[in-house]
């Protein structure tokens, strides 16, 4: 199948590469289907391209690129959306991707560590988990000169 994208014109994708966000994400509740686009030359950038809206393509990084010891606890509701019911908190790894959305403006580059995009890869389901009881910021500044430091 083909979809229109923000940066690459038409792009081929397969149905099994689509990630479902059953509740959308806050502010974009209608956007429930995304594909991840990664380019070796732009590593570690990840693009989250909406299938419904070509102009909507979030820029993201794996959370541990921004903050190497990033840890989080998801709510039961988020675990259920991901198809991971039960009390166990799954670790970030090959089955669970944890991305942070990047906000670029003229002054700053910030990462939203308060609300990571968590993707359960085998189920192809994603959610934006809003963390409770954490000091992570929704506008964590990324300093490009020095190595990223966690606040």
């Amino acid at each position, binding site marked *: 199948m083909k979809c229109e*994208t923000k*940066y*690459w014109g038409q*792009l*081929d*994708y*397969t149905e*099994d*590469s689509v990630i479902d966000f059953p509740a959308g*994400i*806050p*502010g*974009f509740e209608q956007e429930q289907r995304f*594909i*991840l*686009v*990664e*380019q*070796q*030359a*732009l590593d570690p950038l*990840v693009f989250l391209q909406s299938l419904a809206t070509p102009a*909507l393509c*979030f*820029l993201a990084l794996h959370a541990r690129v921004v903050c190497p010891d990033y840890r989080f606890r998801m709510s039961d509701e988020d675990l259920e959306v991901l198809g991971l019911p039960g009390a166990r908190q799954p670790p970030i790894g*090959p089955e669970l*991707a944890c991305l942070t*959305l*990047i*906000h*670029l*403006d003229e002054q700053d580059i910030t990462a*939203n560590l*308060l*609300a990571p995009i968590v993707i359960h*890869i085998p189920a192809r389901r994603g959610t*934006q988990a*809003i*963390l*409770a*009881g954490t000091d992570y910021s*929704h*506008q964590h500044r990324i300093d490009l000169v020095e190595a990223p430091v966690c606040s």
Partner: protein
Amino acid sequence: MLMMKRRAGESILIGDDIEIHLAHIGRTRVKVGIQAPRNIPVVAKEVKLVRDENRAAAESHLDGALARLVARVPANRKST
């Protein structure tokens, strides 16, 4: 900011139409019931922060050389 002391089971009124009821007070969390007119959205503050931040992030624009680089590099969809 107005501060009030209330016990579990008690309520606070904001105007005539909004009632905040302290349903349960636990060790680290309180359970709050909120009655408000339908046209007044009620969300946890973090949800609004994240919604506003997502909208701002969606406007992030790669421009100039970076945008040209992104467009030139063949895109590999990750099949993970």
